[in-house]
């Protein structure tokens, strides 16, 4: 898959040089350093380091705080994915039933993607605010339960999940609408002629045809929730209350930057690296699927 027309001994190297420089200096070198760091115990000021083998990983495995951060990450990523992908699928399903006004609906649902998750988090922080928030105020008419995210871990988790999913809904809808527009009109017409109702049309035709997109979006939303969600946690809950919203990336930052535990943060980086590699492989299985589908 290449067009080799031009011949030059030095030009191609010059052309790839900027990309390669950034890649090597800021991606590969630090990633290798992280790998190396994970095998050493480094003093807080970085002046002494001792090779300790897998000790850093051993410590993490034995650390209940690390387990809870892994669990929190999965709850967070799962919650964001369910809200954002399922919500988008339902909305996209509704939009296809009545195709008129598609562009308007898309615009109205798309724009939250522009809002940084941290800024979205701050808006939801006020909506959830125990003293001044609109949500606890209205809930107080229904139940006496204290929806205070500063005290209740699950409320805090809900807060960050909803804020993140909010920014992601439109993104997923954009993908679904692109996929739905690619379904040939004749297929839907045939279903119409055969007397398939809206729900049957959705379950028998639309859903299977967009399932590769669904799979891809699930992976993508997971990756995003795992690796790009530091901002919403830091801006809103700072991992609290206690450690109830401390996701893996936040713990890594805390242990590395604030705790200056370089060995442990290196080991945590390596574990995250393994996860992102796994998810990327999954993501590219989607690409293959799409090729065979066509």
């Amino acid at each position, binding site marked *: 898959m290449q067009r080799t027309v031009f011949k*030059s001994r030095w030009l191609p190297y010059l052309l790839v040089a900027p*990309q390669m420089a950034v890649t090597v200096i*800021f991606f590969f070198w630090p990633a290798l350093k992280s790998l190396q760091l994970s095998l050493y115990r480094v003093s807080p000021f970085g002046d002494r380091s001792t090779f300790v083998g897998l000790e850093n990983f051993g410590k993490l495995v034995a650390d209940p705080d690390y387990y809870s951060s892994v669990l929190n990450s999965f709850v967070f990523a799962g919650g964001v994915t369910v809200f954002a992908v399922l919500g988008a699928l339902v909305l996209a399903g509704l939009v296809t039933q009545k195709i008129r006004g598609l562009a308007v609906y898309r615009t109205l649902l798309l724009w939250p993607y522009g809002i940084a998750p941290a800024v979205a988090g*701050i808006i939801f922080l006020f909506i959830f605010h125990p003293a001044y928030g609109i949500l606890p105020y209205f809930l107080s008419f229904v139940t006496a339960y204290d929806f205070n995210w500063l005290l209740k871990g699950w409320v805090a988790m809900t807060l960050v999940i909803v804020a993140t999913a909010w920014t992601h809904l439109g993104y997923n809808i954009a993908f679904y609408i692109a996929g739905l527009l690619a379904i040939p009109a004749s297929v839907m017409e045939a279903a119409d002629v055969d007397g398939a109702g809206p729900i049957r049309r959705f379950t028998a035709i639309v859903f299977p045809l967009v399932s590769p997109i669904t799979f891809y979006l699930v992976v993508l939303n997971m990756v995003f929730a795992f690796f790009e969600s530091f901002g919403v946690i830091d801006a809103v809950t700072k991992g609290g209350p206690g450690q109830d919203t401390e996701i893996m990336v936040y713990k890594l930052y805390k242990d590395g930057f604030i705790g200056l535990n370089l060995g442990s943060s290196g080991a945590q*980086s390596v574990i995250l690296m393994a996860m992102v590699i796994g998810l990327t492989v999954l993501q590219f299985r989607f690409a293959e699927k799409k090729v065979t589908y066509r």
Partner: protein
Amino acid sequence: MSAVGATQVGARVRAQAAAAPRQTRIPWGSLLLHAVLIACIALVVFPLYFAFVVSTQDLQQVVQRPPRLLPSSHLLENYAQAWRKANMGVMLFNSAVMAVTVAVGKIIISMLSAFAIVYFSFRGRMLCFWMIFVTLMLPVPVRLMSTYEVIGTLGWLNTYSGLTVPLMASATATFLFRQFYLTIPNEMAEAAQLDGAGPLRFLFTFLLPLSWANIAALFVVLFIFGWNQYLWPLMITNTEAMRTVVIGLEQIIPRSGTELPTWNLIMAGAMMALLPPVAIIIFMQRWFVKGLVESEK
């Protein structure tokens, strides 16, 4: 492609409309559908509406019970006060510099490297391709502390270089350009060569003019990516003069009970922080959707 889809859809809608007179029943189903959709959209729009409403109220209205859901008259003074209090001018400027530089930088270096990979055969070509691909698997958290160390060694902490250059590698943009170049018939490059045009001439006078749609689409997506960065500027900057708006906003939140609940100012700040990327999505929607959907392939 989407235009074709739209006309097909249009044809289907017209066909349904033509068939409609034969059905005499009132379309309750479609009315219900629209009602559900509008309710969903109201739910999606509400947080932003509410943030805007709060940004126009004075302190008393912010804390009043029941909450006031209508705009008030303090918009200008709140925005002016938030602007002064949080040093908004500097932060918005920094965010703009970061977003534009990262987007333009990514586009330029990706365009060049994709060109090299598609149109030249050179030793290490596949190695370059795979190295670019692997950056997908190395997000910032995976190399957090050691990247920080590299930036420190380079003396790039609290500089625009530190904020932007390390984010410029882009596998997705490179792949998008590569895909695009592969759709251009090889004859074009051969013809250019016969006419005596060198590779750079071909890139700038043939490929570049054809790439504007892709460039616009990428720019929108990458601008939003750059503007909304959080962990990176938090790591690289620690002075007020270098702070970006997305991280600066967090620092004016009243956390303790003894501070005034100046949520109207926070919301004014939030509106200013979210306006540029949201406006870009709305006004460049066509490019945005193209960029999103195609750059992920």
